[in-house]
Structures are given as structure tokens and as C-alpha cells.
């Protein structure tokens, strides 16, 4: 199973969900299958689940889709007990498990050996956590999670590799911030960015 095919299978399902994606190939692939101002590209490895938690807690009516990698999640495993404590019902945590540090040389990670990320998520208090082995199962689990209103963790076993020939990401980091912040302001009717020059 390829990560790109999984992502493509859910692109039309997720509507205006805010997608927070991990540094690495998952962001490149996601931005090609669902180009949107509602995408946030995370550059700190592992932090997407924590950023997703902050979004989910403060925008409770919005679906928050976290697109994580196994190497990244292993770097921020402590986010799982925090998620399992807060249990934001509008957050869907997808982890693509390819067993390697794909973006940093391809060396094996602990998820390729004896660590079971779904068991870890369950043990951390995440109420719904499953493995999926096929694109169709992934699509069905994400569709069900979008309807469920319960914190969900979906781990998809995929083969390593980034789909070739994709359009590179042109958006710069701060541009990404402004696009997402303005998108949230428009769609949620809230103010995110402080007014420029508040005294004038």
C-alpha cells in the first residue's frame, strides 16, 4: 500500500477539515491531492499531533486531520497520553507507518521492529485506535472517524517512498501561517491575527 493512494482516497471526503501534516513526503503528497489554505505544513518533527490538539480544543466544531509519520510520532510520543487525556472528539490522527526515517536517509525506526503504535495509542488513552492494511480500509476508517465525534487514531502500514513527479510546495512558512489564519477567520468568523497598529 502506498501513502499517496491512501491520501488520494480521502481527499474528497474531508471537506473543509484543517489538515496538519508532518515534515516529509506526506506533506508534499497531501498538498498535491488536496491543495488548500486549510493545510498546515509542520516543520518540527512530531509536532503535528500537538498542533492538532491545540486546534481541536479551540475550534471544537471543526474537524482536524493530523497526517503524521511513524518516525515523527516516535519523536513526540508523549503527545499521545496528552491526547488521550484531552480526547478532543473532532481530531483524527492518521499515522503512515513505513518503518523508516524516510526524509532523513531511510534508516529503520522502532516501528519497524517491535513497537506497535496502535497498542501505544490505546495504552495512552486514545479511545479508538486501529491498524489498516488496505487503501479501502483506510478510506472507510477516515470516513467513519469523520462521523464518529471521538478522538480516532488510524495507523496505515505503507511502503516507503514518495510519489515521483509531484508539484513542489511553493508556499513559504510565514505565508502558510497567514493563509491558514485568514482561512480560519473567514470560515469560523473569528479573529486570529491581531489588528495591525491597534492604536490607530
Amino acid at each position, binding site marked *: 500500500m502506498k501513502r499517496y493512494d491512501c491520501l488520494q482516497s480521502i481527499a474528497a471526503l474531508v471537506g473543509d477539515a484543517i489538515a496538519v501534516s508532518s515534515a516529509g513526503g506526506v506533506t508534499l503528497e497531501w498538498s498535491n491531492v488536496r491543495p488548500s489554505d486549510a493545510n498546515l505544513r509542520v516543520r518540527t518533527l512530531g509536532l503535528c499531533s*500537538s498542533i492538532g490538539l*491545540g486546534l481541536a480544543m*479551540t475550534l471544537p466544531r471543526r474537524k482536524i486531520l493530523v497526517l503524521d509519520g511513524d518516525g515523527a510520532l516516535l519523536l513526540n510520543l508523549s503527545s499521545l497520553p496528552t491526547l488521550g487525556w484531552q480526547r478532543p472528539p473532532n481530531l483524527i490522527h492518521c499515522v503512515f507507518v513505513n518503518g523508516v526515517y524516510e526524509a532523513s536517509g531511510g534508516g529503520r525506526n522502532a516501528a519497524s521492529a517491535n513497537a506497535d503504535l496502535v497498542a501505544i495509542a490505546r495504552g495512552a488513552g486514545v479511545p479508538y485506535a486501529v491498524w489498516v492494511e488496505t487503501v479501502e480500509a483506510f478510506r472507510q476508517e477516515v470516513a467513519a472517524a469523520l462521523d464518529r465525534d471521538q478522538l480516532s487514531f488510524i495507523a496505515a502500514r505503507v511502503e516507503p517512498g514518495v510519489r515521483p513527479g509531484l508539484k513542489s510546495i511553493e508556499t513559504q512558512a510565514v505565508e502558510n501561517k497567514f493563509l491558514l489564519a485568514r482561512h480560519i477567520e473567514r470560515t469560523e468568523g473569528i479573529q486570529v491575527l491581531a489588528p495591525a497598529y491597534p492604536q490607530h
Partner: protein
Amino acid sequence: MVSTSSAAVDRTSAAGPALVVEALKQAGVDFIVVLPDQKLARLHDLLEADPFFTTVTVCREEEGVGICTGAFYGGRRAAMLIQNGGLFVATNALVSTAIMYEIPMLLLVYYAGDLNDRFFPTVGQYTEPVLQALNIRYWVPREAHQVVPTISGAAVLAADAARPMAVLLTKPILGE
């Protein structure tokens, strides 16, 4: 936290923690990520007991930078209440998320190892140099009357400058 609850009765009634709460309210900071420290316990108790604040306890401080970032996008003003050792843990996320993406957040950092604080002198030694290296502006209120203007001012400055700002909280200010 539970193990310190019996000691809470014996703690001094110094006004510091209440002043921090007042400053946060004045600046509209209502989303607080916490990783408790013994010296932060009274302040933490006040924040948790006050419905004005949403508090999230994390397991590791780097998570907190992410959660504050998410809360920023959700339209909230966010702060982290941590120890200075935890500031060191959070540096990677501060650099490649908070600073790189220009996300405002207030770092309220217990200054262990400060003068006349015999906890963690090594951590104390590196606290200000690390903040300087990160180019994060910081202040150290020494008198009770400085607490509210320093913290509320730093929070407003963080929003205006779209960067993290830090206030170091000493043992006397925390009333410990």
C-alpha cells in the same frame, strides 16, 4: 501535584501567583499549557480553579509549543507555564515552529538556579544565555509591583511582534 496538596496549606500567602493571574487576564491570555514544577504549584492551582482559563497539562514541554501554536490558529492567546529546564526541552519547537512561523506565545518560566535559589544552579546558569541565543526577549520582574505590567506587556508584545516572549519567574515572586 497530588503529593504537594498537603503542603499547600503551609505555603506563604505572597501575592505573586495572584498577580500573574491578573496580568494574564488583563492581556486576554486564556489558554495555558502547563508542565508543573513544585515552585509553580500555587500558580497552577489558581489557573486550574479559574474558569477564565483553559489549561492543558503536557508530558513534555516541546508538545506545549505545538499546542500553543494550534490555540493561536484557534484565535486564542496562549502561554506556557514551565520550568527553565523545560525551556531547554522546548527549544527545537520554538525555533522551527514558533519563531519560523511567527507564532506569538508567552513563556512563563520558573527561574530555577537564580540567585538565592539553590535548585538546579546549572540550569539557572544557562537560562538567560539560551533565551539570548534564541533571540527571545525576556524580562525578570523582581518586585511585586512589576509583575502585572511585565507579564501583560510581554503578552501584548508577543502578539504585536508575532514571536514568543518570555518572563522569568523567581522563587520570591512565586511566593515560594
